[in-house]
């Protein structure tokens, strides 16, 4: 248990490559995004494949939000107010986000929140 206490550090690892063993989970799949395709459609294939995973992450984030604000008002705010921001986003991002929301079935406000997570969490 003491190893959880900072500044725990192990000896420098060697011969970890090629990746294998308990610190390696899997390789990463490749997808092509064709920039000649209209922005609304260019993420279709990827999101068709990953919509279940995106929906699960989204549900986890909603559960966290509801844990902080049990009335559900925070999620309501994201679902009802955030989509109005979409048109202020530069091209091609607003069309891409709309396409992702439609293909994945995740509400637009929640797709948008996922995409601005960095700005939300830099405090």
């Amino acid at each position, binding site marked *: 248990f003491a190893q959880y206490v900072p500044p725990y550090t192990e000896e420098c690892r060697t011969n970890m490559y090629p990746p294998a063993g308990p*610190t390696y989970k899997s390789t990463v799949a490749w997808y092509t995004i064709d920039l000649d395709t209209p922005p609304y459609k260019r993420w279709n294939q990827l999101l068709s494949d*990953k919509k279940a995973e995106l929906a699960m*992450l989204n549900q986890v984030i909603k559960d966290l939000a509801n844990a902080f604000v049990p009335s559900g008002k925070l999620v309501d705010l994201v679902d009802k107010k955030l989509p109005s921001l979409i048109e202020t986003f530069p091209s091609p991002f607003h069309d891409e986000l709309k396409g992702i929301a439609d293909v994945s079935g995740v509400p637009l406000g929640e797709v948008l929140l996922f*995409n601005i997570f960095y700005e939300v969490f*830099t405090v």
Partner: protein
Amino acid sequence: CTSVVAEDSAGKLFHARNMDFGLFLGWDVKNHTWVVTEYLRPLVVNLDFQKGNKTVFKSTSFAGYVGMLTGVKPGVFSVTMNERFSLDGGYIGIIEWIIGRRDGMWMSFLMRSVLENATSYDDAKNQLATTKLLAPAYFILGGNKSGQGCVITRSRTTSLDIWEIDAKQSQWYVLETNYDRWKDPFFLDDRRTPAMKCLNQTTQAKISLEKIYDVLSTKPVLNKLTVYTTLMEASEGKLESYIRDCPNPCMPW
């Protein structure tokens, strides 16, 4: 996050990163994991952005996320971004955006725009250093020839520091975690010291992407927040990524 750009003795540049995300976003007490981090891992994808059936840039990203955090423009440059925490943070940028002040750019959108449009290492550096942002950030940039590696420390409005590789002065790598280089890291979150120790132990003569993977696999550089590791080499347009895990004993961040 931890990002490294290193130059070997022949002047070849290597760029790699650990993407750490999900701090304080739900701790699973049973499995000793961060909840959001676990759910992000299945969303990691490598993307090949093409125009006219030719690669414009490659990136490691998350399905559903249209901005970029990690990428390489083959033959030109590679870039990663690390989170920079500040009281003058992104939430102020968001409020400004909502009330109509929209002269700043969303960080990940800027990264994508740079990967798509920048024509050289210097062009990318200039855009990342000067474009007004909604949130502070660290941009870590690698090029395709000797000396082309830097960390740009950004506030929302300006570049605070550009720290460059200078192999002639024994500065053969630049390493960024989530703290300004002129300050000590938070004592409970010092990934900088162990990463530097391992890089110094490796030496410039023996550095390679494989050796950097070793560094990024050493705890606490690898920790419970680490979603993926990406290895890049701009000159060859190489990008490879691996989903990571950090079995116990492992630091939560």
